[in-house]
């Protein structure tokens, strides 16, 4: 096949895709929304470490010490404690109003001073895993600290022979808004590219224009490549704008690494996801079927890529399965490049994986496209 006409066809067909998209005002608005407002909302919603954790305290002691313990909990880690009665405690926890309920027993201070080793009860709503785990450690530390200060008038850490100095690298404040923003960008890149490429194909089928293309000297390969580049270009542009304007400027997230490297990876990832979109667009015969396929694919892609919960915590089988997902590698790469300032030398395995996944999906779609030609027209 001569190369020049092929490239020309790919170029012009792609321009056609872009023009079509420009006409759909509602779609443009939704893209704008997804890459600005949605990113902003996702970034700012994420609690910073333990943020405003709801805690209630049953103070049956009403002593100086219990008052100090109550004052030990304050924003931003904890919401200001609700003082409640024993009777209220269960109902409030049942209704999910508090994650923690601390019960300071009567005569706590007196018993403590008398060396009777009194016990405080800490109830944790363990269905809220994230808060339950880190939060209870904080609550224990705060209570111990207040008791130590009260008893010995000194800081508890001073008493330990070895001090552990914890430092978080790459994101010293463990700020989740950084993370939330970048992950939401990745999510939207995935979702938009699958929908644009897949739905554009289904629309061509429903409007009969695909038939028109196929009677021209245009090959399925050219049709596919044009959709990939056009969709990819739109999403890449949206991503770049979103990163520079929303993430860096408005959300003030310091981007450590090379934006160019990240965008190059995004382009590779887009190659994979648009191919996936086309695959779904051929598999689904109508828009409603495509919609369902979309949800079935996109949920795992977004939730299990390592962007929401750490990949280390996933069962081996899920982890292995997700190796085949482009988002897994894209998320790993994004963390490395944007936070750890990793260079090409570090992230080349992810880039290679993205390329391989992309090539596989593209080839698969192309074969399916060719095989389904009869059904398409």
């Amino acid at each position, binding site marked *: 096949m001569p190369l020049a006409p092929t490239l020309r066809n790919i170029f*012009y067909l792609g321009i*056609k895709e872009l023009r079509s998209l420009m006409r*759909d005002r509602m779609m443009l608005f939704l893209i704008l929304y*997804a890459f600005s407002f949605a990113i902003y909302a996702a970034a700012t919603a994420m609690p910073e*470490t333990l*943020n405003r954790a709801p805690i209630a305290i049953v103070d049956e002691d009403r002593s100086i010490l219990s008052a100090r313990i109550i004052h030990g909990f304050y924003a931003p880690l904890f*919401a200001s404690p609700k003082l409640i009665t024993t009777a209220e405690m269960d109902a409030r926890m*049942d*209704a999910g*109003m508090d994650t923690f309920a601390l019960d300071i027993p009567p005569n706590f201070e007196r018993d403590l001073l008398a060396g009777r*080793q009194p016990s*405080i009860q*800490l109830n*944790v*709503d*363990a269905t*809220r*895993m994230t808060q339950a785990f*880190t939060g*209870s*450690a904080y609550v224990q530390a705060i209570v111990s600290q207040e*008791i*130590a200060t009260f008893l010995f008038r000194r800081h508890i850490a001073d008493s330990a*022979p*070895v*001090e*552990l*100095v914890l*430092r*978080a690298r*790459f994101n*010293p404040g463990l700020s989740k808004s950084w*993370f939330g923003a970048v992950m939401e960008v990745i999510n939207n890149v995935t*979702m938009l590219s699958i929908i644009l490429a897949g739905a554009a194909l289904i*629309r061509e089928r429903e409007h009969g*224009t695909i*038939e028109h293309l196929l*009677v*021209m000297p*245009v090959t399925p390969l050219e049709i596919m490549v044009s959709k990939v580049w056009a969709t990819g270009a739109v999403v890449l542009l949206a991503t770049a704008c979103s990163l520079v304007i929303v993430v860096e400027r408005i959300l003030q997230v310091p981007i450590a690494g090379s934006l160019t490297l990240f965008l190059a990876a995004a382009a590779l990832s887009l190659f994979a996801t648009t191919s996936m979109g086309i695959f779904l667009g051929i598999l689904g015969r109508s828009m*409603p*079927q495509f*919609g*369902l396929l979309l*949800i*079935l694919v996109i949920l795992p892609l*977004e939730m299990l890529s390592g962007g*929401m*919960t*750490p990949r*280390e*915590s996933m*069962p081996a089988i899920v982890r292995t399965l*997700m190796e085949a997902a482009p988002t897994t590698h894209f998320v*790993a790469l994004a963390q*490395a490049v944007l*936070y750890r*300032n*990793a260079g090409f030398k570090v992230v080349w395995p992810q880039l290679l994986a993205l390329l391989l996944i992309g090539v596989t999906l593209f080839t698969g779609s192309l074969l399916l496209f060719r095989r389904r030609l009869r059904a398409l*027209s």
Partner: protein
Amino acid sequence: MTSDSYVARLRQVTQRYGKVIALDDISLDVPAGNLTGLIGPDGIGKSSVLSLIAGARRLQHGHVEVLDGSMADAHHRLRICSRIAYMPQGLGRNLYPTLSVRENIDFFARLFGLDPGLRSGRIGWVTDATGLQPFLERPAGKLSGGMKQKLGLCCALIHDPDLLILDEPTTGVDPLSRRQFWEMIARIRAGRPQMSVLVATAYMEEAARFDWLVAMTKGRVLSVGTPEELRRRTTSQTLDEAFIKFLPDTGQNVLRKSPPPPPQTHLDQVIAVRAQGLTIAFGDFTAVDHVDLTIRQGEIFGFVGSNGCGKTTTMKMLTGLLEPDAGSAELFGQDIHASDISTRRRVGYMSQSFSLYTELSVRQNLELHARLFAVPSTLIHERVREVAERFELTAVLERLPTTLPLGLRQRLSLAVAMIHKPDLLILDEPTSGVDPIARDAFWVSLTELSRNDGITIFISTHFMNEAERCDRISLMHEGRILITDTPKALTERKQASSLEEAFILFLEEAGGSSAGGQATSLLPPQSWQMEEHPSTSSHHSGGMRRLFAYARRESLELGRDPLRLSLSLVGSVILLLVIAYGISLDVEHLSFAVLDWDQSAISHDYTQNIAGSRYFDEQTPLTSHADMDRRMGSGKLSLAIEIPPGFGRDLAHGRKAEIGAWVDGAMPTRAEIVESYVTGMHDQWLARRATEAGQAAREAAPATIALRFRYNPDVKSIVAMAPAVIPLLLMLIPAILTALSVVREKELGSIVNFYVTPTTPLEFLVGKQIPYIALSLVSFLLLTIVVIAVFRVPLKGSFLTLLMGAVLYLSATTAMGLLLSTFMRSQIAALFGTAVLTLLPAVSFSGLTDPVSSLSGIGRLIGEIYPTSHFLVVARGTFSKALQFSNLTSSFLPLLAAPVILVGLSALLLQKQER
């Protein structure tokens, strides 16, 4: 005449769509009890008049009175719409293709509130009268064009309308079916003389048989009267001619009445198309059965035959779109293969339906096709100008195809097919729905192309006066070619007066009258006569019936789409398994390495303390800070521990020592967990050392903190996650199921049934919603069973409470999809909008991992009102916390409000008329 003599009266009606004036100050009285025809060129407002009278379109200016009341009055519309039947333009546009003939008619009967007995009786009668009885169980989508129109008529007649409105009912229908259609109308009118029929048509020979005609052009009424009067007024032979004479702008609109093409002077011996034994089957249906064709270069070759006889399929095989199962086809001596694109350059193809890009302007469409056909870029501009002039498109070059009348659009399609100067044109019903003037101009162009440029033309048509202009025609029937000859020879062979008559005779001989309708009874038997229009008397009692009619139809359609059914049920179970297992918060096997400057027994003990836990896996020790930077930078380490030199010695001497721990903060959730693990292990290690040193008594804690992990004592992630994934899935899947239901009807056209029947927005929406709620409830039960049986998370609380919550929640999530579907204009936007507006809030703002109360900003606000947050509380409460209804009232209130608000909003947004 009294007002009773008119079924509809229009006074000073003006309609504009954007800049286009569709109706320009029209006044018109339509007499009752007549067969009235609207005639005129394309795009002059015939359809607008009909849809205004039917109440399907919103009136902008003026006054429309139908059946003694104003159509601007919603109450009057609702009262009389059951006395009107409206069949919109387009083959089977208001039918439901996956439903059978019986189910389609039954749906309309239910909408008009017919009792079950009456229903089956009348279905029997109308299908008998139209000859559709043998095809009762066939899906509407699989009917031929003519049969679709008959089915449309059945659906229109099922409730005995007083006014029957048909918009171009026979466009695109073959002559035999067309004749049968009018015979049927005549029989029905004989049985119900009081019924008024209002028809728009592009066929003047049909119009000539009507009682009364309205000639229109450019949004105005030109003349009214009987066909005879119109002819006399213009001293014309035929109605065609009469019509042309009415047109004010004679310079433009002369029906050139071009003579049939002169015979080919030099019979070219080059064979353009040669097909032998072409055969193709779809499943067990043989669409094309051993077709042989030979077309010489420069010939105009016609293809005629009934709808669905295989013409289009044959043409598609010749373009290479379809690969034949057997037989061969050659274009200019070259074999055609679907994979071979070299022959495509020599062919121009125009498909039956308009299939150009509606989002591109006329010029952009022409240029795109020129480029794809590799017209040299220096020539493109010239070529576009040339074809634009030839097909009179120069004035509309910058307009979008959707804004053009059908005739112009067809010319654009032809121009596109011509842009690369092909040697062969394959045209599939290019003039279907085009008015006589435009059609004539079209044929003038075709003749020129054939005779002057030597282009071969292979064309299919339903118009016999077009077939007459072909050099030779083939008659096709049920996948086979019956006969091929010149039009004249064919007419003579049957000794018929016209080609149309010959055609019908050939078809009848071949058994084509099977669907002819040998109705014996012209009148419905007495017992099936309708006493009165039920919904006229009791609109409200019919509401539930209509609601269920919609629910029933939607579930039938859903049932015909097994892929969608299984995807939504099996898919949600698979997603639950993967996600609930996958988003585990039990973090283990974190990688860590030590930079041990001390290398003492104590420092090794410290390292072992961490490495020994199940949480951390030790990697090769670090050698330097640079090594640490490199390995952490590559993400290979989640934790690095640095033990300072002299650590063991310092400790032994009671000097204070410091251990450094670096945590990879790039993934904050993981970092937090790592931090809490390390702190815990550090404290443990200290405590152990203290005990070993016998300091236990002295340093014992002054107070203990008793930790009680409630609801999930082992702090197992699955207990927290599995029940929480149910609300997530029950948001996303039901919403996407309903997201296309309304917008799709808008795109495909069946929404018109909602406009012209007594259905209210609420009946329409809730009716559509019910099947999806039911389907999703099944999905909910499956998910609950999986959570209990597979994940072993017991349901400690009340199942009934959970179920109640699910019903309310599903009503809300399906309504969410409906709302977006009502709001959006295109299916893509509805899909993307639903995905954008459900995924992020449900996954991140509803308390799946972080409780809503801990969120901040806009996300918190969304989380507070989002239904998923509230059902999540119910799901976790009933599963893990053993809660009952009484504990959860604060979550049930928002769940109750959500569907009411969402459905209410959708109903407000849903227009009862087209704008």
